[in-house]
Every structure is written in C-alpha cells, then in structure tokens.
C-alpha cells in the first residue's frame, strides 16, 4: 500500500516538475533576450519552479537532481538580485542543466546514476567567475553545491542549509514586495505585510534555534514592525519603509554569509528598527507579541480575524504570483469517456424532452426546467469537447528553445516568428506534430539558413528568418514552416538521389525542378555531406512525410535556390471544430462549413427583385446583376423533397419537380393544377405562401459561386468533423460526417463535390475536380506518368529542339542591334547586366544559327549561377508530351536525347549539361 502510495507521489512529482520545466522555459528565453532589464515576476517564477523541484527531489532522495537544481537556483538568485545578468553565455550552462534535469525526470529512479557533475561545475563556474570580478560577495562554500558526500561533520550544515533553502524560498516570494518597499511603499497592502511578517517570523525562529544571534535580533525587530504595519499598511511612511528595507537587506546579507553572520555588524539597522518600534503607536501591537515558540499558524489566524473585523483595507495591488492559470491534470482516457458520456447525456435529454412535451401543458413550470437542463447539457458537451483541443502555441513554444540552441551551436543568427498560436488542434494531433515539426525546424536551421557572413554576402540581412505559422484555410488547418535560407538546389538533390540509387538517371531526366526537390522525401535520403549533431542522419524528410500522412495530412515542399524553402502542411479537419450552417433536405440534415457559405437568400414568391428564372433546363437566380446558377440539394442527392408547414411544422412531400415551378404557379393564378386549390385552402395569400418560398444558400468555390436550394435552414452549429470510412469516401458530395446535438449523424456537404455532381461548369470547379482526379490518377499509377510541358523551338531552320518549361527562366525577343560583340563572344543586355549570348552550334554538333534575321529570341534557362542566353530563331509551340527520349552513347553531351514530337525528330536539351558546356565555352566573366 505504502509503496504504491509513494509511487503515486513520485509520479506526481515527476509530472509536476516536468510542468515546471516546461513553463519556465519560455521565461528563460525571455530572460536571456532582455538580460539588461529583468522582469522580477519572471525570474521569481523560474526561481520558484527550480526551488520546488529541488525541494521535492531532496525529499524523495534524488540527490543528483537536488544538487543540480540547487546549483541553478543559486544562479537565479544572483540574477534576481541583479548581481549577475543572464546573458547568453551564462544561460548556456543553465539550459544544459535544465535539459539534464529533464533527462533525470524522465527516469527519476535512476536519476542518481546520471552524471551531472559537469553541468554543476559549469553552473557553479558562473558564480565563481562573478565572484572573481566582484569582491563584495565572499565565497560561499557552505551551500552544498559540490558533489562531495555528506560527512558526519556536515550534518549540522544540512540543518542550516534547510533553513537557508526554506528561507530563500520565502524570500523569493516576498521579493516583489521587497522591491516596492524601496520604490513605492504606498503600494504595499496589508496582505504584503502579512507575507513579510510570516517570513521574518520564520527567519527569527530558525535563527534562534541555530543560534545566529544577529539574525535573530534583526528578525525579532522586523517581526514586530511588520506585525504592526500589517494592520495599518496605508499609514506607513517612506522613511519607515526605508528602515525596513535596510533591515531586510541586512537579513539577506547575513544569510549570504550565514556562518560568520554573528560577526557582522548590524548595530545601525538594529538601532533604527528600535527607534521605529518606539515611534509606532502601540495600540495594535498586543497580539503580535505572540511568543516565537508558538505554533506559527496562530498569529496568522488571529490576524485574519482582526482584518475582517476592521472590514476595510482591501488589497488591490497584490504582487502577481503567477500568470499561468490554474490547471489540474486529467488523463486523456477520462476525457474521452467524458466526451462520450456527454453525448449520451444529450441523447437522454432529447428523449426526455420529447416524452415531457405532453406533460408540459399541464405543468408549465416544467418548461423552464427543461430549458435549463437543455442549456446546461449543451454547455457540458461543448466544454468537454474543448478539453481535448489545445492551442498550437503549446507546441510552438518549445521551438523557441530549439531555435535558440541550434542557432547558437551553429553560430547562426535566427529570428523565429510564430504566428497563429491560438489555432486549436486536437491533442493527439498536436502530439503527433511535435516530431515532424521539430525536424523541419532543425533542417531549416542546419541546412537552410546560412551563416551570417554568407548571408550578408548574398545581400540578405544577417539575421535569418524562420517563420512558423498556422491558420485555417479551406476547412483545413495549415501549418507553414518557412525560412529565407539558401533553399534547396534541385540538381544536388537529383544527383544524390541517383547516387543512392533512389531513381534511375533515365527517369531523372524528365523531372521538373519541383519534382526533383521532392525527391528529398524518398526514404533514406540525406544530402548532408557529414552527419551533424543537428540533422542529417539519413532518416529525414521521408519520416516527416510519413508522420504527417499518418495524421491524415499532406506535406508540400517548395524551394527557390538562394531564396528559401517553404514547407506547407495541411491537416484534415478531423477533430478540428468548424462552424457550420445546418440545412435540411427531406428528413435529413446536412452541415455546410461556414467557410463555403457566401450568403443566404430567402426568395419569397412574388418578390420582384429576386426571382428564379429558367434558362433551358437550368435554374438561375439574378443577384446583383449576375446570374447565379441554382442547384437543388435534394435533386443532387436524390432525396424526396419536403417542406415544413409553418403551422404544425410537419414535413410534407413536395410534388413539384423544379423549384422555379413555384414562380409559375404564383403567376398562373388560373392554373388548373389541382394542387393550387388545396394550397389556397392553406394560405390566404398565395403570393406570400410558405410553400413557395425558397431557401438559397450561396456557396463559393474560388471565385465562382452557386446557389444551393435547400428545403430548410436550421441554425449555425459548431461541429466536430468525423472522417468517412473508405466505403463512402467516393461520395464526392460529402466532406465528412458529424454528430449533431441530438446524437444523430449528419453528413457534411462538400461544395466542390456538389457542383461537380450537379455538372456545373465552372472553370474552378473543373480545375479542382481535375486536380483531384489527377491526384487520384497519380495515386493509382504511382509515378508512372511523365507528362511534361515542353517548349519546341528552332535554331537552324530545320532542326527542332525541345526544353522543358520548368527549365526556362525567360524568353526574350531580341534584335541583332542589341547584341554586342566582344572578341569572339556575343553579349546582350539583360536585366541590367550583360550576359553571354550562346549559339547552339557553338556547343552542340548542330547547324549554324541564321544570324541574318531581323529579330530573334533569346532563351534564358533557369540557373542559380550566371545567366546565359541561348539564341533561338523560331518558337514553334509549347505542348504537353509523354515521350520516350532516346538516350544512347551517341547522344552528345548537352542533350537528353532525341524523340519524335509531332512527326519531327526533336533534340531534347539537358540544361544542366548544356550550362556546364556553356560555362566551359564562355570564359568566366
């Protein structure tokens, strides 16, 4: 039993301490960034966290942990007192120490075996360095920072140390008060004085016990003063506060030199305090004289009552204790089960409500009760759903630290910009994202962002930018990791991929730049020349990609050599909550994500400004001088149409075939339609008849929009998207499913899918459909398809050349006059510089270029070195082809090979080789 108990406590300690570490890490970074201007709240938070780790670990006997955290605590104390500035050099050992603590916590039972002397030594070195600079603070060998074993002799010390530790903790808590005592004593509330009182009392008791006389004397006097002041805080004068401040400072000084404290002269302070005590009114001093040996709590309680008796002095400006909101830890399984139970509760409530409906009439009081239960139940469900959601900021915060460490290690300067911290993601998804994102960030820092000197040389700012942003778009959560580093050179990737046998040279020739870059995601791919600490272990992007895909996401990589790399992760909505409009068709309800909804129209019959018209078979609605195509949801889904009578709210079958019949009926008053008589009975004024009103939801797809006619409009609701099983994934009208408030499942409509099903002819719909199909196609075929866009052109008249569009940077029309001839070379002005103009016959065994033409073209291939122009006499076409380019030993360098395109034998240029040839050919500029 006991063992289990202590196990629980220890795991609690570990969890709590880990939390402490996590919470102080951002603080540490802030501290470091603003090292010249210390925020005392922050440092106190750090100090407290470290102290509680230390305290608890010593309680459980985790000595290594204790020693380490104690060493850090000492440093923080110096930071706090302004004796040291937390500059990066000093923070390095601290961060290492923090990491070590984390490591120890991860396996706390064997933490004593984890070596940490090195860390402790470094941390202590911070203090020692300072001491050698600053003679005021004498050596403090009494604090058990060193790793020497506890000897018999030092037993006494351990008690002393306990006192010191505990007191330091208390002092840390009162520190803000301490500061304001000096600066603005009027801000100090009675509660603050209470805290001070408690602290000095504690010191006094300890000092008497350990026979530190000076400390005791000081403590005794201070206790008396604070004891009185706590009842008359607003009457304290500045000069009095100064005396207190000096007294407290002396106490701290004594503490710092506790073993020789009895020899320190504090006569001045004692006298001043005596004077203060004499001067003070005696009327409230009775119970503060409580004997020091008393139970400590007694005076506190009595004082509280005293306070409530006076009934005023509400403290407004208490020192901020901690900015983090209160939390408790709950296991995820509990939350899951709660979530389900809440669902059940909602169902039960709905059933109850239905059954009670009959009784309500006889007992109207029930109504309010039901409503109340209703609201509460909904709220419970909402809140429980929220419990699983966490802002991505929780994850992103740790990146600051990673970026700092790596940047320092690599001597790079990096600014991390985080955007969209508030976007919420399901906890499990967030956890799954941690590793891949960390990896991406490491990659960016290690391979992407250049050294400061290099950056300056390239005309970039010295400080690299790394941007991590999150936002909702198109019903997905997007995460973008973007750096402005050197980017990825597609050719380097290609070379490596061929070397490692991931791709054959033949196939490689057809790849576009972006495809080449994407080779980086092949399993086992690494470009790193040497394995570094940070990244480049050969398990790289493929792992990232797999991880993202395991979460149902997609990863896109985009890179411009020299400019930077952008990685976009799209995560599905699964478990992300999206606001939606609920609509009805037949008996069924459907959810439409709000992002797709542009506007809503209720078209009343007879309304002149808006009516449904017909073009051929298609129904359209005139909106702001534009025709909006209309689609009936029930038609698309093949659901029997219904309307709801406003009187009884009962669904009735709709017999019209087209919604625009409503208009015809209203105009054709003498219609023979038997329905119309029946309808007349139900409504006095046919023109505003409910049966003829039409609800139109305008959905947007890109720049296009269309109207969706629905039978009924319900409320807006926040829904949690559930994924569709494979069996219904092919139903393109749906993006997912959700569970409604009443426990029923509702489908989520997909605007693009509906437009497609309704055969609306939007370019964007088509494009989107095309894109989706293409993705499908590609998935099916693997990477078989080699369709590429190529440019067909001539140099000499009858010789045909081809180059993939991907490889072309620009095509320019040039005149012979623009060309300058220097020596044997031609140059041309291009983008404010002169670049060599190359004729293909100079480098390839082809016929000469006809230079007598009045104008011709210059083709500038994409390159990240020096631009060159290739003279082109005629541009034939750009086409998409899928051809087998023949490459054999006779193929000259600079060519991929030859193939027949449109019946012409065409030479496919290999830009890489071609450029190499050109650079060889044209002497360096």
């Amino acid at each position, binding site marked *: 039993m006991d063992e289990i108990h202590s196990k629980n406590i220890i795991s609690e300690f570990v969890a709590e301490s880990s939390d402490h570490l996590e919470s102080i890490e951002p603080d540490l970074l802030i501290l470091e960034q603003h090292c010249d201007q210390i925020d005392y709240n922050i440092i106190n938070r750090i100090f407290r966290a470290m102290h509680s780790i230390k305290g608890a670990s010593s309680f459980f006997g985790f000595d290594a942990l204790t020693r380490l955290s104690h060493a850090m605590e000492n440093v923080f104390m110096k930071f706090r007192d302004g004796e040291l500035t937390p500059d990066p050099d000093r923070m390095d050992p601290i961060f290492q120490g923090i990491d070590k603590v984390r490591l120890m916590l991860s396996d706390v039972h064997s933490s004593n075996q984890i070596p940490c002397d090195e860390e402790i030594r470094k941390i202590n070195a911070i203090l020692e360095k300072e001491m050698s600079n600053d003679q005021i603070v004498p050596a403090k060998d009494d604090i058990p920072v060193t790793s020497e074993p506890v000897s018999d002799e030092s037993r006494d010390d351990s008690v002393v140390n306990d006192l010191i530790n505990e007191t330091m903790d208390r002092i840390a808590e009162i520190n803000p008060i301490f500061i304001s005592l000096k600066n603005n004593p009027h801000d100090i509330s009675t509660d603050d004085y209470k805290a001070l009182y408690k602290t000095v009392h504690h010191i006094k008791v300890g000092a008497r016990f350990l026979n530190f006389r000076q400390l005791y004397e000081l403590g005794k006097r201070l206790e008396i003063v604070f004891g009185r002041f706590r009842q008359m805080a607003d009457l304290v004068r500045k000069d009095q506060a100064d005396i207190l401040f000096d007294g407290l400072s002396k106490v701290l000084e004594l503490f710092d030199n506790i073993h020789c404290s009895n020899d320190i002269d504090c006569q001045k302070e004692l006298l001043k305090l005596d004077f203060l005590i004499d001067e003070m009114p005696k009327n409230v001093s009775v119970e503060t004289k409580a004997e020091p040996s008393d139970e400590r709590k007694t005076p506190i309680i009595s004082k509280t009552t005293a306070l409530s008796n006076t009934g005023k002095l509400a403290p407004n400006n208490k020192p901020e204790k901690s900015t983090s909101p209160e939390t408790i830890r709950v296991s995820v399984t509990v939350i899951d089960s709660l979530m389900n139970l809440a*669902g059940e509760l909602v169902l039960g409530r709905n059933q109850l409500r239905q059954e009670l409906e009959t009784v309500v009439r006889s007992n109207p009081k029930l109504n309010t009760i039901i409503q109340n239960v209703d609201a509460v139940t909904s709220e419970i469900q909402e809140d429980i759903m929220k419990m699983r959601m966490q802002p991505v900021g929780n994850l992103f915060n740790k990146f600051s630290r990673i970026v700092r460490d790596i940047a320092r290690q690599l001597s790079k300067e990096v600014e991390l910009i985080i955007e969209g911290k508030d976007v919420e993601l399901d906890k499990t998804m967030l956890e799954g994202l941690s590793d891949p994102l960390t990896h991406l960030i490491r990659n960016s820092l290690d391979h992407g962002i250049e050294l400061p000197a290099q950056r300056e040389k390239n005309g970039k700012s010295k400080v690299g930018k790394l941007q991590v942003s999150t936002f909702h778009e198109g019903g997905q959560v997007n995460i973008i990791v973007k750096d402005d580093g050197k980017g990825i050179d597609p050719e380097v990737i290609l070379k490596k991929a061929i070397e490692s046998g991931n791709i054959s040279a033949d196939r490689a020739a057809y790849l576009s730049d972006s495809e080449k870059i994407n080779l980086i995601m092949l399993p086992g791919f690494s470009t790193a020349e040497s394995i570094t600490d940070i990244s480049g272990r050969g398990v790289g992007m493929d792992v990232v990609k797999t991880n993202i895909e395991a979460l149902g996401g997609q990863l896109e990589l985009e890179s411009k050599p020299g400019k930077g790399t952008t990685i976009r992760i799209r995560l599905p909505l699964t478990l992300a909550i999206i606001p939606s409009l609920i609509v009805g068709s037949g008996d069924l309800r459907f959810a439409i994500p709000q992002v797709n909804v542009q506007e809503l129209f209720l078209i009343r019959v007879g309304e002149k400004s808006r009516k449904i018209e017909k073009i051929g078979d298609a129904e359209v609605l005139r909106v702001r001088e534009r025709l909006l195509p209309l689609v009936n949801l029930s038609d698309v889904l093949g659901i029997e149409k219904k309307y709801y009578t406003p009187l009884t709210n009962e669904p009735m079958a709709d017999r019209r075939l087209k919604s625009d019949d409503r208009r015809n009926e209203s105009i054709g008053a003498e219609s023979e339609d038997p329905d119309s008589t029946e309808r007349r009975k139900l409504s006095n004024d046919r023109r505003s008849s409910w049966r003829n009103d039409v609800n139109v939801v305008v959905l947007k797809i890109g720049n296009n929009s269309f109207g969706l006619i629905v039978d009924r409009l319900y409320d807006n609701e926040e829904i949690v998207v559930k994924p569709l099983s494979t069996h*219904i994934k092919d139903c393109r009208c749906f993006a997912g499913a959700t569970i409604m408030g009443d426990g029923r499942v509702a489908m989520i409509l997909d605007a693009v899918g509906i437009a497609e099903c309704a055969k609306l002819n939007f370019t964007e719909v088509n494009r989107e459909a095309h894109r989706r199909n293409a993705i499908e196609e590609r998935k099916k075929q693997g990477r078989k398809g080699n369709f590429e866009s190529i440019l067909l052109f001539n140099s000499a008249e009858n010789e045909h050349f081809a180059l993939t569009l991907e490889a072309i940077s620009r095509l320019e029309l040039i005149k012979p006059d623009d060309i300058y001839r220097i020596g044997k070379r031609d140059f041309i002005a291009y983008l404010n510089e002169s670049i060599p103009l190359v004729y293909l016959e100079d480098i390839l065994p082809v016929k000469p270029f006809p230079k007598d033409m009045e104008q011709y073209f210059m083709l500038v291939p994409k390159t990240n070195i020096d631009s060159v122009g290739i003279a082109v006499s005629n541009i034939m076409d750009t086409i998409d082809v899928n051809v087998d380019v023949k490459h054999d030993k006779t193929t000259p360098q600079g060519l991929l090979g030859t193939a027949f395109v449109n019946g012409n034998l065409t030479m496919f240029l290999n830009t890489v080789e071609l450029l190499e040839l050109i650079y060889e050919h044209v002497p360096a500029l």
Partner: protein
Amino acid sequence: MAISQFITFNIMDHLVGIDIKDVREINRILEITPVQHAPDYVRGLINLRGNTVTVFDLAVRIGFGKRDITEESHNIILKKDAVGLIVDNIGDVIEADENEIEIPPANLKGMKSRFVEGVKKLNENLLVILSASKIIEYDGVYKEKD
C-alpha cells in the same frame, strides 16, 4: 484444437456466423443516417457513443436483397474499421473446433462466396461462417449510378 465461437444470425434461409473475436459489440442503435451516392450495401452512419460507424446491410453485402429494419434487427459492430452490420436477428453463440470447419461448398445459393470463410455442419443445417475482414474490405470499383 483451437475452438472458436461464432455469433449467429439468419439471412434469408441461411444460418450465418461471425467469429466473436471480430465483434466489438451488438446493439440496437438503428437510427441510421443514409449516405447518398454510397454503395448499395452501405446503409448509412450511426453514432456509437460519439463515434461515427458505417453500417452495412449485411444481406446486401453478401448478395441478397435489402432488408427492412424490424423489431428483431440488430447491429453487430465489428472491432476493425468501425463498421456495423445490420442483421435480421441474433441467435445463439455456436462453438466450433478448428477442424470442424470445412471449406465452403461451391453451391452456396445466392451468396457471394468470397465473403465465406467456411461452413460447419450442424445437426439440421449448415452454419455459414463469414469473414469479417473480407466484409469490411473496400472493393473500390464502385460506379456511380446517374
């Protein structure tokens, strides 16, 4: 000598069983939201304590006509892939030894044989054992009916 247990139910004239190990639970959640344009054997989606479960009409899935939902209808929720199977009724749990199970005969009338894992001879009739994993396998070749 492994002994398996099978949950049994009737489809048309057949006594059909599914290995109890593949079954998460049996319930009567029959508030099914239909999914338009879905394969014919997909009856729709249900809410199983906060999770959506795709429900099949098992009769349609294995080659019979669509069944009406009655008082006797039950929903067998499979462990894998959150799929539910609507069956007309639930019978006994029948035990069968591994070597009692025979390969399915060629003439299983009206039933798609690929879903059948084996049969067991009972006193009066045959128990047709279905493969849960085959049933939840997606064919992928679904064509839209326009």
